[in-house]
């Protein structure tokens, strides 16, 4: 009995000492514990592959070969940067991104201005315009491929070409293939720019226009001095997103032309895919190319973000 009472006493005292310890766990520690699983997942799924692929970019390595990576320093980077074909890929990507983003911005902003004033059925029209960006890019590429087909497609017919022998070969003509991809990309993503612009336009206080009207400001002046500056931050965000996406564009190009004919529409993403997979499996070189793309995207994004901050400051 005496033994039992001693046990209980010691148990109570141990609980007493344990309870204050539990109470001592700070909010910070609890937060850390909750975040820990996410951090572990991030390290495993993002940080480790990022660092490992950086290491691989300095090696001669094929993921399907039964050989360990061989350290070759910056050779992959110098090969890429001194290869004319890679520069041609970058030029194709830049041309595509530039034309595509400019057209999307103009069309998206134009649509937003048209849909700014509510009218009967404007909600339905807005929703319908947004449909393309909700579709899967590969599905979009597949049905546009059919529409571009000079024998079966409707695109040439809508443009007024009825003679198949003189109709443009949108995906087979090296002068038109990139434009064909731009057309599809603009069709798909202009609504995204429109959506952000609409959000910006709806936030402009009406009194600014009233004051301008009292001062007999022209419509152009109101647009230039009120509408554009007010929408600019959101417009720049849209441009930033679209530029990054256009630079990484893969699905549409792969679905429409696979980089062809020849390599006239071979963007860096397509080149990266061909290098990393599709018979070549040059893991080292493709890792290096992936890092070059990453650096370019970060650089371009930084330029945009600076412009964005300037626009906000103004």
């Amino acid at each position: 009995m005496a033994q039992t009472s001693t046990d209980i006493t010691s148990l109570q005292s141990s609980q007493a000492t344990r309870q204050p310890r539990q109470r001592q766990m700070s909010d910070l520690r609890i937060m850390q514990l909750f975040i820990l699983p996410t951090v572990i997942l991030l390290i495993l799924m993002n940080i480790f592959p990022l660092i490992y692929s950086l290491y691989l970019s300095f090696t001669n390595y094929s993921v399907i070969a039964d050989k360990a990576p061989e350290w070759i320093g910056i050779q992959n980077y110098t090969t890429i940067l001194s290869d004319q074909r890679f520069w041609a890929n970058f030029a194709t990507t830049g041309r595509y991104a530039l034309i595509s983003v400019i057209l999307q911005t103009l069309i998206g902003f134009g649509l937003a201005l048209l849909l700014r004033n509510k009218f009967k059925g404007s909600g339905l029209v807005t929703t319908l315009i947004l449909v393309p960006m909700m579709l899967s890019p590969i599905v979009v590429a597949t049905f546009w491929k059919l529409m571009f087909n000079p024998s079966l497609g409707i695109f040439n017919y809508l443009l007024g070409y009825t003679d198949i022998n003189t109709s443009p070969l949108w995906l087979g003509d090296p002068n038109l293939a990139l434009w064909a991809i731009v057309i599809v990309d603009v069709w798909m993503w202009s609504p995204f720019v429109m959506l952000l612009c609409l959000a910006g336009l709806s936030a402009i206080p009406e009194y600014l226009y009233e004051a301008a009207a009292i001062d007999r400001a022209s419509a152009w002046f109101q647009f230039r001095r009120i509408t554009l500056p007010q929408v600019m931050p959101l417009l720049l965000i849209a441009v930033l997103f679209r530029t990054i996406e256009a630079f990484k564009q893969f699905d549409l190009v792969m679905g429409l032309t696979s980089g062809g004919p020849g390599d006239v529409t071979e963007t860096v993403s397509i080149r990266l895919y061909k290098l990393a997979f599709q018979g070549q499996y040059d893991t080292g070189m493709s890792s290096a190319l992936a890092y070059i793309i990453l650096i370019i995207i970060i650089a371009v994004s930084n330029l945009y973000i600076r412009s964005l901050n300037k626009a906000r400051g103004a």
Partner: protein
Amino acid sequence: MLKKFALLLMVALLMVMGVGGSVVAQDVTELTIWWAQWAPADFLQQVGNDYEAATGIKVTVVQTPWGDFYNRVGTEWAAKGTSYDLIVGDSQWVGQGVTQGHYVDLTDFMVSNGIDKTVTPATLQYYGEYPPGSGKYYAYPTEGDANGWAYRKDLFEDETNKADFEAAYGYALDIPQTWEQLRDIAEFFTGRQEGLYGVAVYTQDDYDAITMGFENIFFSYGADWYDADYNVLGVVNSPEAVAALELYRELYQFAPPGTNDAFFQEMNDAFTNGQAAMIMNYFAFFPALDSDANPYRDATGYFVMPTGPGGERFAALGGQGISLNSYIDDARKQASLDFILWFAQEDTQRRWAELGGYTCNINVLESEEFLNQTPYNRAFAETMTFVKDFWNIPEFGQLLEPTQRYLSSYIVAGQGTAQEALDALAEEQDAILVETGVIQP
């Protein structure tokens, strides 16, 4: 019923005789085979079902779309995975599968069981042997395939067409015997009727289509991808190769507009739509033309590759052999070998052919039953005697990429001349072969 009994008896005999070595495969209750997604894989599944009925071992044929098949396999190889036991891999993969250790050496198994003698030498060489001429086998030739031609007999036999063609070209309109004749016929039919074009040829550049299409002329013109020492300079860009490429581009000019990214499906579509008088395609895709989907079914004929200027005739090899995954355990390897042994038996091969599979078994190929089974089997059997393939060394993927690119640039995009395209291709291929140590600089 009788056939099923025969199968059962054969499998029982094989088991009693303990064919296949000392390792007992009795614990294995299922086998997984990887193949691309197409009709022959469905036929193999049916054959697999027969095997299950006979042995109790379930066979599952996992199909992956052609465009993704190599990527999926490559990823599995990288992981040294055991997701499959057997793989029906493309002929070009053999070198890579062997040198990188993904395929099991089947030489002893095939020779000791006499399987190597049951298939045509060309299929054994291209689907199973590595290095070429070594007598080492890594795959059992499963689906023999090659390029052939389908044509519109109604157009060829039309009296007006025959008279006009003879007046224009000075010889009778008939199945082309030479590539020059094929070109003339393609030109003749282009625009002959509204919406009709002379020919449809492979142009797709994402895997190997345009190269395979071009190879038919390339080899027949006496050109080759490499010489005896694997040199490509002056070989890939030889005068014969240039002439072949110019002819292929000419043929593309007589193809329906919009076939700039065309492979097997687009070939059949051009034919059934009534757009093309002749199409090239792998024999494996001709069953679609011998069905109600083809409005010209009764007027569809088939012929083999024409000859080149020197009288040589080659057809680009398709098809695949079945190989054993080197990363599975011994029991599964033994069970897989048992399956191959059963599959290679003449009765099974006959059943395989009946279902629509393209057997490589000599006896089945030569049988009247097989030759008369479909309108294209006779042409197929003849074609399998003059097939030729692309590189099958481990570097084939690296070599294929610029080949596709330069061919597409010239044929489809019309950039530069044939000589420029092949000169650039030869230089790039040479650089790859030097860098990988296949040839010395």
